[in-house]
Structure formats: C-alpha cells, structure tokens
C-alpha cells in the first residue's frame, strides 16, 4: 500500500516537474537566442558578436546555433567577433577551434575578429594552434575578408 502511494506521489511529482520544465525550456530558449545572436551581415555571410563569459555549456550552444544557421542560410563565411569576451583561456580557445573545424566540415569558413593585443598574447602563450583559422584584429577587416570569400568587395564610389 505504502509503495502504491509512493508510486502515485512520484507520478504527481513528475507531472508537476514536466509542467515546469516547459516554462524553463521556453526561458532557456530565449536566453540562448540572446546569448548567441547570429546576424546576417550579407547574403551568405554571418556574424556572431560574442559578449560576456564563455563557459563550456555556452560554448556548446554557440557551436550548435552557428552550425544550424550556416546550413539554413547556406553561409560561406562566419565571422566570430570576440572583442566582448573578457577572458580567453585554453578552454575558450579550444572551443573556438572546434567550432571552426565543425563549420569547415559543413563547407564554410570561420573568421575570428576582435583579437586584442591581450588576447593575442594569451593565445600565443597558451600554445593554441590557430593556424587553421582566419584572424583579424578588427571586425571591419573581417567583413572585408568574408566578402572576398563570396567574390564581393567594398569599394569607394567615384566622386
């Protein structure tokens, strides 16, 4: 009898939890969208401005969101701007590298921009091999490079 009651109780708890999971899931989805804002800069060029701390969980979300968008938009180039990331350690660098590799498997290229002197020093001291990545210090240069990949260029209008 006690067992039966306990069983009912656990069912009730599961139902209660399931109802809350829905709400939590919606909030989490909203947070994910906000924390991984993938912007379409140009036809087939995407930009992901990263702001704030990147932990392991967020890094995985970033990779997944980006990969889905690359296929949806058939993007040739993805610019990841890390100017707003306060700390780039081995873990963050490694995740960026993995994201680059995964984007390459889809058939697109990643350009890393927003690399400050501080981040450049950290990356070299950590011994991270980023030779497989296109890198630029400024976002504007990254956009020019991305446009070049799709056969476009920014030019001055004749006066």
């Amino acid at each position, binding site marked *: 009898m006690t067992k039966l009651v306990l069983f009912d109780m656990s069912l009730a708890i*599961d139902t209660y*939890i399931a109802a809350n*999971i829905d709400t939590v899931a919606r909030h989490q989805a909203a947070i994910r969208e906000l924390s991984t804002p993938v912007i379409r800069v140009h036809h087939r060029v995407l930009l992901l401005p990263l702001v704030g701390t990147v932990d392991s969980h967020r890094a995985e979300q970033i990779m997944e969101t980006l990969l889905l968008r690359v296929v949806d938009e058939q993007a040739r180039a993805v610019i990841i701007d890390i100017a707003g990331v306060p700390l780039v350690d081995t873990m963050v660098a490694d995740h960026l590298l993995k994201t680059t590799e995964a984007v390459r498997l889809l058939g697109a290229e990643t350009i890393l921009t927003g690399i400050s002197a501080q981040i450049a020093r950290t990356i070299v001291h950590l011994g991270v091999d980023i030779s497989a990545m296109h890198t630029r210090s400024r976002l504007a240069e990254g956009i020019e490079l991305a446009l070049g990949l799709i056969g476009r260029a920014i030019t001055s209008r004749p006066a």
Partner: protein
Amino acid sequence: MTIRVLNRDEMAVETEHDVVTVRRKAQAVAHGRGLSTFAIAAITTAASELARNVLAHARRGTASVEAVAADGRSGVRMVFRDDGPGIADLPRALAGGYSTARSLGLGLSGSRRLVDEFEIETAPGKGTVVTVIKWARF
C-alpha cells in the same frame, strides 16, 4: 542522485548487424526522451563506437539501452558489457591511443567526449563494462 529506469532493452552484440540494431535503439530512445538533434546524434554515435569496441576487442558482449529519469531530467543510459580480455592500459585507451584496423582508436576516448557521464570498469582478463549517460538539455 537517484536514477529511475523507465524502460530497458538488452541486446546481444555479436555481429555487425547488432551494432546497427543497438545504434537504432539508442536513437529511438533518445528521440523519445526529448533529446535535441545534436544530443541524439552524440548518443547514437557513442552507441555505435562502443558496440563496435565490444566486437573488436571481445568479439561478443551485450548492450542495454535504458530510458532514465533523475531530478526531473530525462536521459538515455547505455551499458556495454563483455567478458573479453579487458583493457590493460586504460589511460592510454581513454586518450585515444589504441587503434585497430577497423577504427581510429577513438572508440572510448571519442564516445567519452560525446556523453555527459562516462564510467568504465575493466581489468586484464576480467572483461569490460562501460556505462554512459546523455541527459536532455533545455
């Protein structure tokens, strides 16, 4: 953390075809537990790697695929069991050092990186038991 088992399927791993059966089972259970497309691919691939490992190193064994729940989370647990020679150099196997004709030596190290929880019990001559769990994320 108490893990409740909601459903359990045990299968023999003796042929290449069994690897496909285990993989499909893992995929179906993961789908039923509400895992994301990425998590389903991860656990299904891990199932393939681990079942193939059983064949490659012990020739036969068993795989169980379970639908599990804990703390309001839902997930998939898989246990791969064999009575093969066991693993003498576990750290090396986990680092991806062993490679056979049929694999890149990524069986254990690769599947470990694909799951949320990974446990291995092995000793030379005592067989190997690998237990993995993948949880649904929100």
